[in-house]
């Protein structure tokens, strides 16, 4: 699509969408959001970019092949699940670490659950872009 306004606007919008998608993923455990929604928003950013500037530019901006991202996501999610087995729990049991926790404050919670959600994010993000890019180039 040849529109200067869309192209210029997209440069900012796509970046904003990416940041927003990350925010949505991180807050997902307590507020509406999560890896799935985050991945969808992030993918929307790049789809917009592909429509405005063409898939070639979008691929260049992404640097990595989208299918590679999806497969890495799957691997990360699997690792997060297997991690529990190292501690003798059932597969995919969440493992938590509270940094700087006091009696009435939980500090900074880190967990394999978050890692798993990042994996979901990458899978959704990568899969959608794989499809959209291929379709845009195909037809």
């Amino acid at each position, binding site marked *: 699509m040849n529109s200067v306004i869309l192209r210029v606007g997209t440069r900012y919008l796509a970046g904003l969408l990416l940041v927003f998608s990350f925010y949505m993923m991180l807050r997902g455990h307590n507020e*509406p959001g*999560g890896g799935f929604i985050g991945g969808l928003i992030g993918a929307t950013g790049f789809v917009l970019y592909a429509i405005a500037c063409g*898939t070639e530019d979008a691929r260049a901006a992404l640097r990595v092949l989208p299918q590679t991202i999806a*497969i890495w996501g799957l691997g990360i999610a699997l690792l997060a699940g297997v991690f529990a087995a190292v501690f003798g729990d059932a597969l*995919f049991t*969440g493992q938590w670490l509270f940094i700087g926790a006091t009696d009435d404050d*939980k500090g900074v919670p880190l967990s394999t659950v978050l890692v798993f959600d990042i994996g979901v994010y990458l899978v959704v993000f990568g*899969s959608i872009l794989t499809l*959209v890019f291929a379709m845009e*180039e195909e037809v």
Partner: protein
Amino acid sequence: MAGGFPTDVRGNGAIGVVPVLFSAALFVYFASLVPTIAAGDILRVSVPWVASLGIDFAVLVDGLSLTFALLISGIGTLVLLYSNTYLAGHPQYARFALFLTAFMVSMLGLVLADDLILLFVFWELTTLTSYMLIGFSHESEKSRRNALQALFVTGAGGVAFLAGLILLAAATGTTSISGFIAMEEDIRQHAMYLPILILLLAGTFTKSAQVPFHFWLPNAMAAPTPVSAFLHSATMVKAGVYVMARLHPAMAGTDVWLWTLTIFGAVTAVFASLLALRQTDLKQALAYTTLMALGTLTLFLGQESGYAMTAFGTFLIVHSLYKAALFLVVGCIDLSAGTRETDQLGGLGRLMPVTAFSAALAAFSMAGFPPFLGFIGKELKYAGALAVASEPLLVAGAVLLSNALMLAVAGVVAFRPFWRSSVPAGQSPREAPWQMWAGPLVLACLGALFGIYPDLLQVALINPMVVSLTGEISEAKELQLWAGFNIPLILSVATFVLGLLIYAGHVSLRARLASVFGGLPNLDTGWDRFLHGLKEFAKLQTRIVQNGKLSSYLFGTFLTIAAGILLTLVYTGMPTIAVDLSDVEWKHTSIAFLTIAGSLLVLATSSRIAAISALGVVGIGIAMIFIVFSAPDVAITQLLVETLVVVLVAVVMLRLPALPRAEFRPGHAVLSLAVGAAVTLTVVSVVSNPLDLRVTEYFEATSWPEAYGRNIVNVILVDFRALDTFGEIAVVVIAALSAYALLRTTRKGGPE
């Protein structure tokens, strides 16, 4: 394989030697167990395997399994030694040695297993490895076809066998073989006895090539000769016989068992001996005599008397010894003279003295002349046949006829090529290297040795085997060369006379048999026709189901959905519709109108972009329903997916030609209304009943204290149901990659 023996008889280096040593070590190990077993002990080793299902890696060494193990490892050693020269310098010898060794180990596992599931695993392993061996010459189409035939026939039997084993385990409550043999009475009285028996016999009959499943076995001759020697003598085909023998104490004794095994065994034995005489190819003739042996063994397993059991054990050993020896001899003849056709062979006796000697010993044993083990085996067969509970005369007659035919075949295979006076011109046969005559010689001499000293075999193997089969040492009958002047002896003499007569007239008899059997339906070509028909049916079905039209796929899918739901509703009774509409607010109504308006627009418009946008309106309407009923996560996802779908569909659709004038398709209209009605009825019936909220309450209660998350939807996704989510994202990746591959293969040119 014409062209004489390999010039380099050193074989194939370490690849050739190591398997021989390996199987020799196994044989020595099993031989060292003989004194223990002969003393009446039984060895059991059991390691938990699938503990949650009560399946153990259990191994049982008793008289029956030890006899089989000795035959398998002993003949395996000789066959591997033989192959190392037979296939010397073969570029794929490593493959061959691997398959053959793997096959041998699977066979050993099969006969030693004391657990039904373990038994089945090894059973299937022998099917697979024998498939590899039969199809070893994979450049030949015939070889591939025959290997596939063996795989299909025995594999199909294997499925029935598995079903039988599962039923058996369910009926007895244990998978341990020695476990349910100990409680024998239960199985025969069990309501499932008949189905179990039929399924198990379907497995063993296909594996042991009983008529009418016999046709794959002669075709399996496509394998190199040493493989045939191994498969036909001690292993593969004996697997079915072994299983019948193993289950004999628990399953035998009923009329069904008695008659089924007697009839199938007798028919196979006689039919196969007649077919054997018809062959002119030495290897084919031997293949059919294997069928005869399998029939005879099955026949005896149908009985319960001590004579029948002793005859079974003796003939099992006799047959393994002479059959392996003769196959190996035929391999020598084949390499040496360049042909296996009886009419083109003669006078090899002086040129190949050692081979001729082994062949003669083995053939005497096969023909049942004294003082060979075959004679004792034959005497016992007659004694066993006369002790038969069902039809002694019929059985004895069948055994007599097949034995006489066997004698004639022995003459054709092992006498005529060596001692016929005329030597066909144009051949320069010579003696085989020692690695190739050692095997037949050892096996043939054992047949003679055990014939002269039957006590050796009696104490070491026959008695323990009969104990395994009947549980009583007293049931084991004595093996002796001279049992006095009795009916078996008279029958033996009759056999000799009849057999020699058949041998004398076998050339003209062969022609007559050919004309008789030519008129019978040929199961082998029937097999081809069956496979062809199957492929044609698959093609037809593909043409109907996968016709390449997207609209017909969608039609089929939705038709299935509508029919499934509506039929279920009719079957379970229509739900009572008790929907309370009192709390419907104006915002609900307006969302409903929005959605309906979007759907109608899709139907009415003839512009693609309008149709796509209208679909987006429907999606947004659904997202708003989620928002109204406070499910923000679902709503956000729905909105985002809807956005992306509109983009994706637009990308594709906008390149297509303009929509034709909207035409009315009554079939589609009826189907859409039916799907809508079915889904509506389902939803209504769900909300008409009180919801089961136990799971929801559990998640509400534990989400924060246990999973440290306030967003229950997300906690379910990444914690409570993380494994499900993982499966789903795996599906997402696979779907994306498949779609990508599909798009890439159809694409022409373009970037990258």
